[in-house]
Each structure stands twice: as structure tokens, then as C-alpha cells.
């Protein structure tokens, strides 16, 4: 599938509008149901960006395996996607791409760019972490301090307050580096995989993490120590966790088993918000857009959206999609 449009064109058009929101809302979606290697890709998959009219527009390559997208804050034409092949990079707004990793890195789970050192790119992979210091022209493993086994890394996030400060969500816990991945140390031990980790858009010291077997956690000291969120169930896997950029007290969790869980008091209490979602409410991911609307990607269904943080739901576009990640991208950084 050829390139449809350039990432940059949307950003430039949006930036020209005086009343534009401060964030762009971006998702990585796999719409091709039941794709298996060797079968035909029949739909557009990959990065979608919502325009100001609320429509989702596909950008870049058609790839069923894209798990996350990240941008260089200095230049939106520099785009990174983690995907089944590993890490892809575009330097021209999605017109051309390069598979950046060597053969021995596979199945990129997440990608992050250091906003304070934008040449530095971090890739979460199935057996650890790879790092680039040259805009992904080269990638090397940097795993000193990660365990020999148990370093399956599902998510990776850079602390926006400090260059080289990164948290990795791994099979046996959360690991922190403060020197650009030269050294890692465990800051939270878990029985099974940490499925997501997020930094608050309101207070950079506040972080949230979701896990497969131990509920969710919050850190109020920049990820150094973590406290369990007691109201979150721990019997089944939580797939992701998110903040609401419009309200520092609002968090949401997506879970196949529990559907959508929300908190509106900073994580003290949690409520299941599944009324109006399809029966079974198998939620793959939740996300919150720049206006505080809550989105839920429901397996084998479509994207659902709620204007009242989960109390009521309505169907959105992208029938059949599985959203692998939601991204709020600050426009101010253009």
C-alpha cells in the first residue's frame, strides 16, 4: 500500500488554526482481523491521526504489526514505529521508511524518544531493550542491570524532565535507568509482566503502571517507589492504563476481563464503566483524547467513545480495529 499522506501536512494544517487544541490524538490500529503471516492484508493498518473534524486518517505504511509510534519533538517528519519487524523510522514524514534494527531484534513492543535528547530512541522488544543515540540509524542493546531472563519488555517511557531517565515495563517488574540505559535497576518487582507504564501529563513525578497479575501501581516520586492501587482488581490482566490530560484526578484502565475501569479521585476508588459497551466488553486499550473524551478499543468490535468518562458510550469509526496504542502528542513542541 502506498503512502497516502504525510504526517507533517496534518500537523502544519492543524497548527495554522488559531483555536487548535494543544495535543494531537494518534493511534496505532490493526484493522485486519485474523491476519496471519502469509495471508492477504485487506485493510489499512498502522498509524491513524484524528483531524480536528474528528475523522481518522491513515498515515504511513500499511502494517498490521505496528504497536506504537513516537516522534522527534524537533521535527515531526521524523517518525518511529515499533512493529513486528522491530523498529521503523521515517525522516520524511512517512514517505519512506527504514527498518532500523538488526536481525537479532524482533517484535518491537513500544518505542520512545527522549524529549531532552531527541537523537536518543528506546525500543522495547521481546527480550530486552535496544537504544539508539543517532536517531535510530544504529541500535544497540543496553541491558546492564536488566535480568538475564525476565526482561521481556512490553512498554518503555522516557521521563520528560530528565534526559536519559527511562522506565521499562518488563516481565518481572519495572526497571529504571538514569543514564541513558547504561545501567538499569529494578524499582518494582512483579510476579508477571508489567503491561503498561505512563507518566502524568500534569505532574511529571506521578507515574502509573498496569500489570498482568498484580493490579495497578502509582508512583509519586518519579518512578522510584510504587504503591499498589487498592481498588484495582488483580485477578485478571490489565492491558493498559492512562491519564486524562484534562483532569489530573482521572485515570482509566483497559482490560479484556474487566472492560473499562475508571477513577476520578486520583486512583483512590475505581468503577467499572462498561454499560453501553458490547457484551463481554473485551477491551484491548483505553485512551483519552485532548478534550477528555474516553476511548475504548473493544476486541472484534470497533472503537467506542465516551463523552462522560465511561458512563455512556457510542460507537466511533474504525470498525474491526484493535488499537495497540493511543498517543497524545503536544503540538506546542512543533
Amino acid at each position: 500500500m502506498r503512502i497516502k499522506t504525510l504526517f507533517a501536512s496534518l500537523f502544519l494544517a492543524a497548527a495554522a488554526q488559531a483555536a487548535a487544541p494543544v495535543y494531537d490524538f494518534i493511534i496505532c490500529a490493526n484493522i485486519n482481523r485474523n491476519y496471519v503471516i502469509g495471508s492477504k492484508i485487506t485493510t489499512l493498518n498502522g498509524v491513524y491521526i484524528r483531524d480536528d473534524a474528528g475523522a481518522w486518517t491513515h498515515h504511513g505504511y500499511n502494517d498490521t504489526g505496528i504497536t506504537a509510534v513516537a516522534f522527534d519533538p524537533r521535527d515531526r517528519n521524523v517518525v518511529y514505529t515499533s512493529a513486528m519487524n522491530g523498529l521503523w523510522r521515517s525522516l520524511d514524514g512517512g514517505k519512506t521508511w527504514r527498518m532500523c534494527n538488526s536481525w537479532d531484534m524482533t517484535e518491537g513492543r513500544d518505542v520512545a524518544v527522549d524529549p531532552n535528547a531527541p537523537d536518543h530512541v528506546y525500543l522495547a522488544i521481546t527480550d530486552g531493550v535496544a537504544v539508539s543515540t543517532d536517531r535510530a540509524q544504529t541500535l544497540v542493546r543496553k541491558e546492564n542491570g536488566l535480568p538475564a531472563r525476565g526482561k521481556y519488555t512490553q512498554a518503555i517511557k522516557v521521563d520528560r524532565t530528565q534526559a536519559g531517565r527511562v522506565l521499562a515495563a518488563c516481565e518481572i517488574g519495572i526497571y529504571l535507568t538514569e543514564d541513558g540505559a547504561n545501567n538499569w535497576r529494578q524499582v518494582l518487582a512483579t510476579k508477571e509482566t508489567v503491561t503498561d507504564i505512563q507518566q502524568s501529563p500534569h505532574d511529571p513525578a506521578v507515574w502509573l503502571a498496569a500489570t498482568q497479575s498484580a493490579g495497578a501501581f502509582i508512583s509519586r516520586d518519579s518512578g522510584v517507589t510504587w504503591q499498589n492501587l487498592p481498588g484495582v482488581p488483580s485477578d485478571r490482566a490489565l492491558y493498559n492504563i492512562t491519564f486524562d490530560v484534562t483532569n489530573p484526578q482521572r485515570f482509566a484502565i483497559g482490560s479484556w476481563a474487566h472492560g473499562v475501569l475508571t477513577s476520578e479521585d486520583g486512583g483512590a476508588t475505581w468503577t467499572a464503566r462498561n454499560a453501553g459497551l458490547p457484551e463481554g466488553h473485551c477491551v484491548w486499550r483505553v485512551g483519552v483524547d485532548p478534550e477528555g473524551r474516553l476511548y475504548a478499543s473493544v476486541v472484534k468490535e470497533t472503537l467506542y467513545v465516551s463523552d462522560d468518562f465511561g458512563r455512556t458510550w457510542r460507537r466511533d469509526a474504525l470498525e474491526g480495529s484493535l488499537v495497540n496504542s493511543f498517543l497524545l502528542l503536544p503540538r506546542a513542541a512543533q
Partner: protein
Amino acid sequence: MNRLPLFLLALAATVTLSAQPSFEAPPPPTAPVQDAGKRHDEYLKRVQEVLDWRAGRIDITQPEKHLDMAAIAVLLTRGEHYDVCSQRVIELMKDPGTGPFWMFPAVCVAYTGRDKLTPEAQKAIREAWRTTRQLRGDTENHWLMYYASLYLMAELYPNEPAETWYSGKSSAENLAESREYLVHWMDELTTSVGQGEYNPSHYIGEYAIPMLFMATWAKDPEMRIRGKMMLDWLFAELAANTLNGVLRGPNSRTDEGSAIERWNALSSYFSWLLFGNTPTPSGYGGWGVYFAPVAHNYQLPEVIYRIATDRSGDYLQRDRARTRRYWRYSDVLSPPVYKTNYLRRDYAVGSTQGIVNDAIQSHVWDVTWAEPDPRGKHNTMFSLHPHSSPKWMQSQFATYPEAMITAVTFEGKPSYDSPDKILGASPYEKVFQDLDTVIALYDIEPGERFEHINGFFSKDLVNVTEDSSGWIFAQGGRAYLAYRPLAPYHWIPYLHYNGGWAKEKLPLGGKLLVSPHLKNGTIVQAASVDEFADFAAFQAAIKALPLRFALDPVPTVTMQTLRGKQVTFTYGQTPVIDGQPLDYSKWKLFEGPYLNAEVGGRKMTITHGHLKRILDFNTLTITDQVTK
């Protein structure tokens, strides 16, 4: 001419065109062809049969219906219809596929057509490799196909810049990356610690075809010899693990069909083509057609042919392999797997010991008996715990707990979450084998998805007898079989998922022994009918053997085998044979009368009678010896 004769002519033509002589004819003789020239001529005739059959299915006036990439490669090989092929290539390249199963057919067309297709068609192929992102996949066979294909295309179009490739890497970069992986796969994995996808019933094509392409088309002589040596390696292992051309268990990966109708697999296509000792599967195995256009460039070494066709003596082969990659929940990325294979003229017994190889498609052990005509025959017996587990899925796949089971049942593995399935490995199954005795013990954790075991009893067994001793006796072909369930059981009909995308189960005959007990076990012993005066004598011999077993606290068996060995096997403990513990850690990569290799050695010695071939990946040399 009126309409009726025209119709009849068309019908007759269709039947003729679709004839598959070696699929439809009586089975070929299994006796070896002694004359080397005749043997090679027959091989080339079989190759030609594939090409003729595939060409015969083509209505050249309807290229959009009849010309896929296999058909184009065949026509180009035969020197036919270059213009139509060129036009069709241009059409096909407008909507290329995305992954290794598209890449290697595209390589086949690109190379067979490089001096035959029009410049426009060749340009269309080249353009597709620029515009369409190729997914590398997540299995060993995916990666081998991906990198062999990318390697050959990068050699075909050298010195081209990064922007002309989907990967965004230059020809030189693509070539270097591909070469690095291919050499790693050969030197560090397959010839050192074994394949993860060992003895695959279907995926052997996904290895053999790219290696043949490499052996034929690589410009770099090192990669050509590597391709050729890998073909020998793969086919030597196939030869040593087949019974009259039929691959038996264990298999790293197979499917429901091949697990019971042992012959019905792509591996049988290669046995037919190379050894000539079994019928080819329908359609020449599908993917097998891609081997044919360049099959003339491979000649099976006589020593491998002899191994494949000689079942005059019993032999025991003990090998090592490794599992699929464990991303999670394991202390080792690819733990070792130990294979025991015992082959006789009338039957074979095989098993793996160790951790689960593949969460979905492994087949751990069986007894497979020889059939004069294996087509349609369910010539096998085995038991298993039908294991279905999100956690085990997650250990080998980058996925979430609930998603994978739902997805996989729609992705070609429909039985994965069925209680009556007959495919897959379980962490709660521990297997011991000595010659033609297998003990499979089960200690299933309470709360597991399925808390029972299944034993497969084929429709082709005769004289199935539930003896008051607790043994179940039966005969399959010329093999007497004794099956001892260690816990109470009941019978249900066997229902079969006919293909990877099947939604309904078919009653093909046969039944399942279902034993709904967490602590459980199966003992199977086999013998040739020639060894006993009659079936009753076999039963008496089995019943006379000392046997003690207990299921609590863990299943344990102490017995004397039909071959006189004193065996003690306790679930989770090292088996003891005649007082000696079985030390798997000392097992070699290959050890037996025919195949031998050291772990880490990168060298296989293939032996039969006076013939010896040494494949040495350290020196990239093939050495043939004839001993006195």
C-alpha cells in the same frame, strides 16, 4: 460438432490435465533402486511430472484465474508463454503480498524469469520490493524464508540505494543483514544446537525450498555451498525419520491431519521426490511445486538415499534439538529437547523429552506402523494431555493472556482450545522411551483448562481388545500394539478438524480414550507380528511382564519391557534403565548408526554401510568416503 461431444471433450481434457500420476497410481515400490543413473533419471522424471501437472492446470487464455506465481515459475522453466507471464507478473506486482510466503515465490519468478520476462515485468517485480513492506514474521521458518529471499533479491539487484528497497536499506545492507542471519541460523543454531522446528511435517518445504534457491542462485559461492549442505542436512534427517517415506512423530510442528494420517504432509512430497518410496500428496504438497523448477540442481547423495530406503535392520537414533524461543516464563531462551527414534521394518516409535517445544503444534510421541499404501490410513497411536493455556501462549508469543487463544483458533489452528484435540504438547506430560516402549506420565495441575488425557485409537486398528488385565491390545498393519491406561477411562468418537480453517469437525472414524484424571499415564509397547506365533502370544507376553505403578503422590511406573529392560520412571524424575539413570545432558546433536554430530560441532557425519558423507560447516566442505 454438436455441443455434447464438445462438453465431453472438455471434461476429458480437464480430467487429463488435472491428473496427478503419482498421487493416483498404486504406491511405488519401497525397494531401493540400485543403479545410480536410473535413480537420478527417476528423480528427474518425478520433477518433470510436477512441472507437467502444474502446467497442465493452466488455461493460458485466462491468466487472471490460472497464473499464480507457481504457475508462472513453471511456465518460465518450461520456456512457454513468456509474454503472457510477463503481463501477468505486471498485474500481480500491483498488489504484492506482505511476508515470507510471498517473498520466496516472488524470488522464484524473479530468477526463473530474469532472462525471459519482459523488462517491464522485471521492473514491476523490482518495484514491488521497493513499495511493499515485508513482514518478517515470528517463527524460524518465517525468518529463513524472509532472509533467504531478501539475500537473493539483494544479489540480483546489487549496488542499489536504500530508497529502492522496502526496508530502507541499500542492497549491500540487505545482503549483509540477510547473510548474517542465514549464517547464524546454520552455524550457531541448526548445526550446533539443533533446529527449533525439527522434523516438521509441512514446514520442511519452507526450509528446503529457500535452501535450494540459495544453492542454485546465490552468486557468492560460500552461500551456494551452504545452501547445498543444508539441503543434505535437512534431507538426511528426513531420511532417518521416515518409514517408507512417511514421516512419523515426534514433530516440532504439525497439524491435526498429519498427526493421524501420517503420510498426508508436505514431507511426503519430498520423500516421493527424493526417495521415490511413497506416493506424493495431492497437488504435490502445494508449496512443493516451487522446488520443481530448480530441482535439477540438487542431487540426493546416495548415502542419504540408502538411509531412507533401508529398513532391513532396526535402529535407534537419539538426537537433540531445541524449543521455539521462550520470551517469558523460562530460564532459558530455547531449552534443549531430546529426541528418541526407534525404527523397524514394520513400525517406528518416536518421542521427545524435555520442555514443551511449541505451545500449539508439537506432536510429542507416537507409534506409527508401516502401511503398504499409507493414503487415507490413520497409522498411528499416541496419547496426550489436551493443554490449552494463555500463559504458555504468552511464553512464546508477544501477546496478552486472553487474546491468543481466541485468535489462534481462527488462524489455522482450530483445535487448540478443544478438549478432544489430538495435537499439541503439555507441560504436564513427561515421556520416557526405550526402544519400542513408551511411558507417558501426566500430573495435571488442578484447575487446568482440561483435566483429562486423550488416547488416539485409529479406525485402522484391528482386533482392539480391552483385556481384563488392564491392557488394551490391537494390531496396526504388521505391528502388535499394547496400550496400558493407568487410570479409568471412557470412549468417545474421534472428530476431526479437516484443515486449518475448518469450523466443523468430521467423523473420520476412530475413537478417543478419554481418561478424566489429573494423575495419569499411558504405557505403549509394540512388536512386529513376526516376533510372535499369533496375537494371543503377544498378549500373553505383555501380560507376563512385571509391572507396578502408582499415581499418588506422583505417577510412577516400574516395569520390565518387552525387550527385557528394567525401567523405573517417575513423573518429573530421571528415568532409570537397568539401574542406570538416563543422563540426557550427555546426548549428542545426532547419535545413531546413520547420523552423528556433536553439540556445537557444526559437522554431521552421515553413514550407511560403506558410504559416508561429512558435512562440515566449519570448513564448508563436503567429504565423501567409501570404506572397505
